[in-house]
């Protein structure tokens, strides 16, 4: 079946994402079936502080790709409330016009405690949209926590969105976060202070250990549709740089590895927990009659002897 045809089966795509997101019965078969068809979409991770304009910018960039005839998928992730387990996912507000476009597919996800972790659920959703025909895929996350950093690692290009007036926040973001940006956008360039933000950013980037790729800083306004072409060019250049240096292969190899390890981890943990001795060994650890290494060794032995299913 050709990619365009699969892309038109919106309900089916949506249901597949629900199945993998919730680890519903049959989700493994879905991923097994689509896996070989993945690898065609270019994945752009878009991150930055809340309110920076990530969704608006996703919408603006998506329009450009759509005009070029490409199919665009968006996975927009917002935090789940730790208190109620509920969430309000509001990224579509900025993308309403595109939501009916046949080349567009937008899906919102909460950071709720998915089985196997958020990045695994996101990776599965990425694979589904990729296999179903997306040419470009955006993953939008709020750039704060560790799990979000894990997610943007799924991306081929990470776009960090900054805005004027963050003040000290920009300093706070430095630790561990600046390093993951491949392209920087100072959004809301229509507001005062945007130039200063760009200068600060560039200064900060110059303190990072030197790399072959120097992340460019683009000034844009998602609202007034300014600077978007330059930003798109910067993304393409990063893409080309990576392709020329074998980096895309590297990233994808790492994703393959993470996917495999995540499945192995889940399966081993499930298997071990169903072992009768699991509780018993835990109890003995509490009594200090066994150490965790020895307990693990005994449980691993159990894995070897029941590996037929």
């Amino acid at each position: 079946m050709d990619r365009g045809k699969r892309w038109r089966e919106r309900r089916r795509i949506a249901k597949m994402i629900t199945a993998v997101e919730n680890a519903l019965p049959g989700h493994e078969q879905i991923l097994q079936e689509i896996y070989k068809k993945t690898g065609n979409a270019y994945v752009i991770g878009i991150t930055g502080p809340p309110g920076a304009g990530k969704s608006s910018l996703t919408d603006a960039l998506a329009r450009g790709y759509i005009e070029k005839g490409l199919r665009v998928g968006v996975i927009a992730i917002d935090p789940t409330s730790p208190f109620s387990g509920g969430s309000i996912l509001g990224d579509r507000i900025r993308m309403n016009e595109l939501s009916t476009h046949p080349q567009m597919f937008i899906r919102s996800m909460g950071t709720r405690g998915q089985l196997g972790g958020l990045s695994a659920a996101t990776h599965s959703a990425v694979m589904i949209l990729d296999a179903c025909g997306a040419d470009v895929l955006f993953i939008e996350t709020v750039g704060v926590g560790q799990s979000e950093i894990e997610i943007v690692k799924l991306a081929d290009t990470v776009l960090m969105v900054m805005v004027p007036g963050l003040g000290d926040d920009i300093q706070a973001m430095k630790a561990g976060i600046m390093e993951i940006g491949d392209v920087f956008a100072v959004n809301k360039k229509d507001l005062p202070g945007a130039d200063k933000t760009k200068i600060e950013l560039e200064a900060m980037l110059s303190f990072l250990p030197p790399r072959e790729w120097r992340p460019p800083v683009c000034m844009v306004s998602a609202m007034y549709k300014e600077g978007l072409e330059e930003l798109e060019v910067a993304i393409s250049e990063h893409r080309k740089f990576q392709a020329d240096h074998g980096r895309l292969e590297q990233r994808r190899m790492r994703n393959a590895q993470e996917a495999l390890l995540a499945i192995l981890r889940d399966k081993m943990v499930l298997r071990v927990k169903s072992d009768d001795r699991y509780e018993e060994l835990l109890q003995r650890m509490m009594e200090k009659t066994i150490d965790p290494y020895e307990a693990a060794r005994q449980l691993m032995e159990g894995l070897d002897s029941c590996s037929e299913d």
Partner: protein
Amino acid sequence: MQRPIRVLVAKPGLDGHDRGAKVIARAFRDAGMEVIYTGLRQTPEQIVAAAIQEDVEVVAVSILSGAHSTLLPRIKELLKEENADDMLFVAGGVIPDDDIAFLKEKGVAAVFTPGTPTTLAVEFIREHVKR
């Protein structure tokens, strides 16, 4: 962990404020639901496209503009066209009693008028969502 109920909250029509929709979105969130909030001035087509892509179990629209007797049946019709008729479809807003029977006939499962406690809407959804 039980997966949260996914609800689309949308505000069709041309009138300019979404206080009611936001109140209901927060109430659903606080009740542990995952709310996809699409904001103001949605066309029925946009609402249904979002509902399909998000694979929600409930479509909840807040309406003030008085155009409910055309907009709501239109949304239901589009859901049917997309084979998404199994989604629970509810509405809230200033809707005269006389119109409620007509809307229910057109496939709106429940109509919540101003003054209905949000807990009632939450309860209704929990009871009627198909799993």
